[in-house]
């Protein structure tokens, strides 16, 4: 089991069920990306402070040669006893490139988990559904634990689950947009139909977005930009951790069932019992 988080941000919140992904248990449902930070040191400190147990790293930023390249040393700042370090394939334009990167990551000593990020459009970084499905099929067969980043497409989510992915990761809104759950309606369908954990990834710009995702029934969220570029990434990470936990508490309590009509707090038919 990974190091239990010691996150003061969640100290006053009730415990909730841990999240199982493949053979791992996670007590924090906040996953964090490591791009865009102003320094590796600040990134390290923000990750520690928010209590996350899973961090993603772009393989294109890392030294995969084994030569301990000091100019590509981001992995040195990600403590493997504290986090599951999940490599992502950002930069890959197609399945073949993503598969090559994933294999290289394992050869370099990283876990055989991979976040598939295949976005041939470098402007909106929207994921390619066809190449993602192809890559997932290959990598699952090779024994990888595959976590694919996708548009909020319920059919694609089902097809990926059919090939054996460990989670599905639909975007809330495009990477870096900070616009929250623009794809809310589609995400709800994915959650309803999911047989694996659903992690809302991309576009989470505010703690309230993260809470909303958990309240909706998502199993976790992945946040990068909003923490990395905040004026105080440490405080921002803690805020997101609290929001995620609060959202999960609400979900487990069954709160927030909505109704179009008023519902009296005193039942009208209590006289019958």
């Amino acid at each position, binding site marked *: 089991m990974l190091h239990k988080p010691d996150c003061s941000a969640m100290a006053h919140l009730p415990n909730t069920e841990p999240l199982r992904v493949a053979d791992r248990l996670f007590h924090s449902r906040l996953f964090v990306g490591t791009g865009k930070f*102003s320094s590796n040191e600040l990134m390290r400190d923000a990750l520690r402070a928010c209590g996350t147990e899973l961090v993603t790293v772009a393989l294109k930023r890392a030294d995969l040669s084994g030569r301990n*390249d000091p100019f590509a040393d981001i992995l040195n700042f990600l403590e493997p006893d504290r986090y599951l370090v999940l490599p992502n394939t950002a930069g890959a334009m197609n399945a073949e490139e993503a598969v090559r990167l994933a294999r290289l990551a394992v050869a370099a000593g990283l876990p055989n988990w991979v976040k598939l990020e295949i976005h*041939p459009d470098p402007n909106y970084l929207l994921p390619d559904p066809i190449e993602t499905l192809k890559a997932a099929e290959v990598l699952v067969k090779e024994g990888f634990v595959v976590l694919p980043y996708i548009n909020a497409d319920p059919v694609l989510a089902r097809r990926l689950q059919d090939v054996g992915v460990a989670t599905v990761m639909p975007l809330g809104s495009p990477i870096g947009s900070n616009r929250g759950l623009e794809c809310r309606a589609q995400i709800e369908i994915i959650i309803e139909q999911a047989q694996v954990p659903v992690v809302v990834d991309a576009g989470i710009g505010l703690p309230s977005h993260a809470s909303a995702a958990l309240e909706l029934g998502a199993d976790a969220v992945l946040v990068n930009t909003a923490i990395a570029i905040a004026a105080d990434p440490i405080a921002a990470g803690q805020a997101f951790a609290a929001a995620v936990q609060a959202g999960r508490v609400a979900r487990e309590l069954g709160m927030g069932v909505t109704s179009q009509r008023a519902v009296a707090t005193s039942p009208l038919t209590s006289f019958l019992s």
Partner: protein
Amino acid sequence: MPTFSQIHPTLDLAGLGKRARHASDADVRRILARGRASTLEDFAVLISPAAGAHLESLCRLSQAATRRFFGRTIRMFAPIYLSNECVNICRYCGFSRNNPIPRITLTVQQVEREVRLLAGRGFRSLLIVAGEHPKFVSNGYVEEVIRRLLPVMPSLALELGPLETQDYIPMVAAGAEGLVVYQETYDRQTYAELHVAGPKKHYGWRMDTPERAYAAGFRRLGIGALYGLHEWRYEALSVAAHAQHLLRACWKAQVNISLPRMRPAAGGFAPKFHMTDRELVQAVAAYRLLLPHAGLVLSTREPPALRDGLVPLGITTMSAGSSTEPGGYSNHFDETTWTPNSEQPGEQFHIADERPPQEIAAMIRRQGYEPVWKDFDQALVSRPEPAAPVASPAS
């Protein structure tokens, strides 16, 4: 789909230019309130003198937009010049064939030596530059250089004379991922006056180079105008329109815009037009607000204080400690301090910021940004597994 050389003449650049010169304060405030530019007309307003009075607000919006997409990071690269042989006569360029500079073409081994030095300084991304000469820059020379450099330098972009798609294909196959070509000036008449001999005379052919390169598989396309050759607002509008076209026509490519201003070079060309420092900053912010996902590249042509000031305002990529002479790093740089210790008579132009890469990196960090050296991996362009590297970076 028409190419940009077919589209450019149809743009109402006269009307846009008028808007760029005469936009009102109210026009500017409307766009600032929205927080972005959606059209070329909006862009024209943002490069107007009226918008210049709102430079602080423009820069705040540009900073925020850049941080959302690119983070607080600056990507580092170095140019490496393979050859200054050139068949063109271009009035403003140090490599113009009628300039009596020492002509140098590096052997592949000499290129490797240059790259070992650059790798020791931290660079993992290079821009490979060469003059245009069918004898010296041909016959697989560039492909061989790419293959030899790739294990040490995973990100390789090229700045060469324009070629056909079929000539670019082997370069992409060898592992190059970016192609840079500046139109220099988008004004046809000025272009004809400045490019008097050689294949560079072909204005439309040059303008369509990014599209031919994309067809060959390049992932990154760099464009720009050389400010000083013609009126800067005309050039900026043309570059903006070119970038918008490439975003549609070359949807899988990252589009980068460079903002080179004329520098002293052999031949003594005196530019007729002047872009001030404030106007350069304004152009950076305007490009950012129109093109939130475009890379904006700042070279060592610019002086230190201006480069420092631009780091947090919208720039995403910088070179550092550059030489524009083939073999310059090996022959004219002090290896310890990484500063030029002798003249470089074969240089394309004289740079303004001679600070070594580590000093630039420290400056970037002081501003709360991270210098990123590696942002690409050989595995993305190599198949099968890469060969043993020819040089190891110094630790």
